[in-house]
């Protein structure tokens, strides 16, 4: 790279780029993934599933059982007595289990992001007798260290409907456990809007557990506009499950871990695979988690959103789709099938309530995305609406579905004819999946943001309530 320009050693050009990095950390917790990294970078350094393993180990006298929490996707492997849990709440995407959350975040922020501190050889773990090492958080280290994050301000994101109590709990953990010098809490849609370069936007976040629509004005959430609905990635997965269960022949979900080897078969033929034998039973949560991996793969590669205009159920559409090439999906056990018109049915429920397949866990009425948008906008001052419609930011992993943006655009045009509608959806997959984190990363690296941080001293003087006062 001889041609590269040398970095100017003088003052950074502050007028162009308002950044002034203070080695802040950014943490974005979602129901499916938790993302952590350094402010100023464009992707989070550490992305882990918010699911964690809880390993039951029976003591020698086999009367008391103790649980060990294991974090990280690579550690969620078949084991006996292994439960998969999530520290977030399925319905709200906010923290439910604070102990687990603390451990999870510590694991990410401290173990994965901080440079190894030199420890005396006596307790650096290298000289200990061999143990099963994976995922074993060096908890003791963390506890030994008085203030592991004393040099890093921390910016955390939260769902816009997060309760005041949860926010106070968060600042307590950050300040008391890790000794951060400064803290800030920002709402995910605001961050997503920042990531798209907007201070005012209508943010449509189609995440894992929820889909939310929020209007942002000048970098602040308009609280009355917040709308959420459970139609997210997990809901889509349950749609797929329903479809597979009801299809003829029934499609069985066999997660990869169960397959030892397979032989190729023709499309539609029964699978010929040898399954692995395990000497222990799996917990349902583990099986469910593994199935979810398969379903996500199916979502990414097969499921498609009918692009519109109009609904998929409109006459003629299905015939049109049937005449077009479908997609083949091969299960881990080798069974494969061509998916044509069915793949459009799965996501149609996001737009058309009548088209949603019945799911076992959703008796409550789910709001479709157009309904959410309508409700959000109707709770916003009329003068803002045109601007919001011209700045629609689409984020969240499930918005990566094929054809999602086209359909959204069509629906918006049908709902608000004559308005200028502009969608801003990041082209890069990572930017869409980590939208909120990236926005937080931008925010925390801005020079003008220094004045916003809640400092340690302010926390000590005012108590945890300060987060409610400051982070509006």
């Amino acid at each position, binding site marked *: 790279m001889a041609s590269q320009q040398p970095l100017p050693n003088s003052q950074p050009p502050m007028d162009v780029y308002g950044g002034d990095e203070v080695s802040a950390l950014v943490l974005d917790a979602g129901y499916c993934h938790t993302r952590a990294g350094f402010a100023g970078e464009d992707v989070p350094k550490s992305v882990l599933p918010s699911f964690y393993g809880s390993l039951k180990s029976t003591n020698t006298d086999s009367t008391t059982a103790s649980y060990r929490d294991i974090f990280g996707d690579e550690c969620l492997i078949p084991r006996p007595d292994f439960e998969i849990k999530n520290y977030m709440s399925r319905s709200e995407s906010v923290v439910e289990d604070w102990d687990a959350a603390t451990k999870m975040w510590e694991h990410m922020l401290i173990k994965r992001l901080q440079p190894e501190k030199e420890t005396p050889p006596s307790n650096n773990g290298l000289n200990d007798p061999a143990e099963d090492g994976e995922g074993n958080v060096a908890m003791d280290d963390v506890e030994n260290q008085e203030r592991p994050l004393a040099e890093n301000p921390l910016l955390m994101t939260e769902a816009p409907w997060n309760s005041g109590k949860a926010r106070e709990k968060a600042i307590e953990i950050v300040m008391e456990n890790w000794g951060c010098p400064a803290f800030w809490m920002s709402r995910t849609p605001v961050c997503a809007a920042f990531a798209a370069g907007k201070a005012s936007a209508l943010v449509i976040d189609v995440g894992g557990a929820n889909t939310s629509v929020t209007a942002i004005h000048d970098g602040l959430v308009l609280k009355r506009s917040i709308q959420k609905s459970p139609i997210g990635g997990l809901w889509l997965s349950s749609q797929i499950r329903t479809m597979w269960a009801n299809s003829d022949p029934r499609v069985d979900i066999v997660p990869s871990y169960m397959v030892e080897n397979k032989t190729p078969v023709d499309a539609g033929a029964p699978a010929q695979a040898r399954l692995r034998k395990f000497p222990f039973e799996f917990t349902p949560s583990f099986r469910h988690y593994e199935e979810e991996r398969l379903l996500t793969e199916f979502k990414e590669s097969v499921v498609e959103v009918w692009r519109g205009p109009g609904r998929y159920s409109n006459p003629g559409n299905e015939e049109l789709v049937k005449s077009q090439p479908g997609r083949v999906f091969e299960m881990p056990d080798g069974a494969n099938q061509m998916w044509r018109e069915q793949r459009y049915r799965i996501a149609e429920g996001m737009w058309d309530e009548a088209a949603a397949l019945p799911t076992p866990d959703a008796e409550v009425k789910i709001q479709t995305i157009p309904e959410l948008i309508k409700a959000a906008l109707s709770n916003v001052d009329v003068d803002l609406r045109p601007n919001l419609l011209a700045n629609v930011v689409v984020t969240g992993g499930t918005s990566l579905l094929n054809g999602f943006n086209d359909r959204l655009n069509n629906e918006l045009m049908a709902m608000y004819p004559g308005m200028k509608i502009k969608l801003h959806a990041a082209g890069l997959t990572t930017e869409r999946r980590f939208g909120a984190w990236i926005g937080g990363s931008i925010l925390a690296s801005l020079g003008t943001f*220094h004045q916003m941080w809640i400092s340690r001293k302010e926390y000590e003087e005012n108590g945890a309530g300060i987060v409610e006062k400051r982070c509006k």
Partner: protein
Amino acid sequence: MASHDVRDMLNLPSEGAGHRPAKKQKTSAPRPNLKGLAREVQSLGGDNPIAIVPEISTFKKRRFGSRKPTARWEMRSFQNSARGDCSLHLRHWRKQTDGRRSRASSQPQQDGNTPGDVGMGTQSESEKLDDSGFAKFNVQVDVPQYSEDQYNSNLVSNDWTKHETDYLIELARTYDLRWPLIWDRYEYTPHLSASTADGEGVDVTDPNTAVVPAPHVRNLEDLKRRYYEVAAKMMAVQKPVQYMTQAEFALHEVMANFDPDSETRRKKFALNALSRSPDEAREEEHLLIEVRRIVARQEKLNQERRELYNRLDYPHTEQDISTFKSSAGLQTLLQNMMNIDKSKKRKSLMDANGMNTPASAHPSGGPPGSTPVSESRRESIAASIGGHRDSIGGGERPERPSKKGASQPERKKLSEQEEQIYGVAHYDRLPSGPTFRYERINKILTTKSHAQHQRITNTLTELDIPTRLNMPTRPVVEEMEKLLNAINILLDIRKINDKVDAEIKVEQAKKAERERASVAQAQAQTKSEDTDSSREDKKSDQTVTNGAGAAANDEVSGHPHERTNREGTSTNGATAEAMQIDGAGESSLVKQETGDDKAARPGSSGAHKRSASDLSSVSDNSAKRQKK
């Protein structure tokens, strides 16, 4: 694929810095300093770079030759004066300055070990701490402030308690006057317990609020209204209105005159616009396009029309154009113009000629003159229209007819007051060329017959007004015109009056005669045929008088004024009234007379037109009379 990629894949140890420059070299043209390696050999490699490359001796030299000391960076603490507390010392990387080098090594460690007392420990050196360059961007809005007393004397409202007003102002400050946010976060809960603290304030405003705290649902307009009210009043309190600067006063006016209702209405409109159906939207779009097209076309049309007018705008000739009205006359005119055209080598006149023909039908008054339209005059007038007409303000200069004004929308519009000051007046139609105002007066007089003229001058002398105006300013001339009209009317009325008097006398004479005759009849009691014949006589008499009346009307015909008409009608009425004196027995006669009157009138004078309503009123009158 480059060889080092292969190496990477095969996990072979890389050769060091060797092949990267080689690749670089390959892409650029082979340099002459590749000695010892024939070009053919080198080209053997094809796209792949050849690993054997003569070492460039300058490379290393350059690298180590100009060795400057590397820039040293340090993790430096800084503070941000925009923060309220200033206790937060964040650290960022900065290029090391000489003065700080000594401290640089110790700083991070110190911070790392004792992060808690960073605030206190660095207290002494806080003045040495850099301030963030971004602190200056922290700006706050000014929100109105008021004291307890000021609130009580100025801002008391039935709708708003002081507590809620405080809350609103506080929100406005927090959200920097971003109203959508203020409204969004407005969650006022009326307080009870705290009201004892500022009890007087609450009591004064509204004693009820202390008892029944009714949470209002405030909309955005309510909030704005209250805020602007407070802001405007406090502005006026701090600086009385008359001392405000222009900008301040404008701001004050805007805030004081905030109209929430019109805002609400506007929002309703906006809402309607948002909730249109696709069809409506499409239609509106369609209409908009149409409008735009029409406007565009209108502009083009205006342009064309203006051009046309410029062409058409021949000077109103002062001379008799009747010679050109015959085809032979036109022919000669064309000849004339062609000659001029040829001599001036101008092309455009040919089509302008065509335009001239219909224009010659234009009415043009004025005394007959001599020469035909001259080219140069045309030009000058066209120029004066196209050019800066707005500079001509004086009333002396006659304005063009208003259709020209319409074609020049860019002209500055004068207000009524200004028009008066500059003496600008608008006329429907003006003869071209300068005229004298007193000529207009003279014209009125000279068009009259000599006798009438005489009578008018007599009346004027009676009124002590000179016939020739000494100072014919516009108002004077206008008044004079009015006066002359009035005099005309007066004279007409007088004339009619005289005539009616005469008629009455005649009728009275007739009546006397008839009475005598009837007396004679009573005395004689003889042939009835006689009376019949006398009636016949009377009838013929009547037609004669009618004819006279019509003649009188004819004289008035120069001024077909409504008023004269009325006058005429009333005189008719008066005649009828006079007739009625004759007695009930005569009603049939009266009726006949009015009928005659009606019949006679249309034929009597072409110019004099009677309105239908007048006619009907007459017949109404006659009907009434008949009833009697």
